[in-house]
C-alpha cells in the first residue's frame, strides 16, 4: 500500500483501540495533525487538525490514550521571539475533537502528557514550562 508519508519528528506512535476493539496507531505530525492509522490495513482512519490559526503549530511529542479510549495530545505554537505556547487537546477515538485547554501562564512543553485515573477521576498530567528558556545554573545534588 502506497500512502503519502506523514511528517513526524519526535512523536512516537502509540497504540489504542477503536470502538470495535481493533488496534489503531495514533501519531502527531509537524503540522499539528493527529493521525489514526488502522493496524490491520495500514490505512489512515482519520486526521484531526489541532493547530492554531495564524501561527505555526506542531505536535512533537507522543499522544497518550486515556482509559475511555480517547486520545490526549499536546500541540505547541511558535509565537516568534523564542516564545512558545502549548495546548492540550482531547480527541475521541472516532476522531471527534472534544476539547482544547490552553496551558496557563503562557506555558509550553515539548513533552508528552500522561493520562491516569485516580479515585475514579480521569486526570491528565503534563509537565510545563513558562517563559523563555534560559540556561540553567548547574549545582551538585
Amino acid at each position, binding site marked *: *500500500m502506497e500512502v503519502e*508519508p506523514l*511528517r513526524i*519528528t519526535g512523536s512516537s506512535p502509540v497504540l489504542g483501540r477503536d470502538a470495535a476493539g481493533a488496534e489503531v496507531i495514533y501519531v502527531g505530525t509537524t503540522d499539528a495533525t493527529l493521525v489514526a492509522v488502522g*493496524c490491520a490495513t495500514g490505512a489512515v482512519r482519520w486526521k484531526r487538525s489541532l493547530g492554531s490559526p495564524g501561527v505555526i503549530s506542531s505536535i512533537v511529542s507522543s499522544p497518550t490514550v486515556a482509559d475511555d479510549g480517547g486520545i490526549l495530545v499536546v500541540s505547541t505554537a511558535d509565537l516568534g521571539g523564542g516564545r512558545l505556547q502549548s495546548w492540550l487537546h482531547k480527541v475521541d477515538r472516532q476522531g471527534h475533537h472534544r476539547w482544547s485547554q490552553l496551558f496557563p501562564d503562557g506555558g509550553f512543553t515539548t513533552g508528552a502528557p500522561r493520562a491516569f485515573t485516580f479515585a475514579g477521576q480521569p486526570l491528565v498530567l503534563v509537565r510545563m514550562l513558562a517563559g523563555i*528558556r534560559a540556561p540553567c545554573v548547574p549545582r551538585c545534588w
Partner: protein
Amino acid sequence: MPGQWIVVFQSSQDLVLLSVFPLPPGVGRWNLILDPTPAMSTDRINPLIATADNLCQLAVLEWDGAKLSVLWQAVSLRPDHSSPAVLSANLVSSVAETERFWPTTGRRGQNVAV
C-alpha cells in the same frame, strides 16, 4: 535510502511508509530535544509523580486527589534529561546527557547508584 532512517508500519498485508527521517530541510524541528514526559506510580495510596526537565531539574511529587506536594527536588549537573521512570520500591531513575544512570530514592532523593 542510505543515510536516512525510515519509520515503517507493518500491516498484515504490506509495509507502509509512515514517515521519513530526517525530514527535508526547513520542515519540522529536526534538532529538537523533547521535554521529558512525567512518570507515575499508582501502585500506592497516593500516586507518585516523577518529573524532569531540560533545565537541570528533577522532582518527585505526590498527588492526594486535591493537590500536589513536592516530596523532593534536585538540580543536576546536566541540563538535559530523559523521561524519568518510577521503579519498584519507589525508586526513580532518569538519564542525563552524560548517559549516566541516576536511580534515586523517591522519598529522599538519595542516589543509590551512579
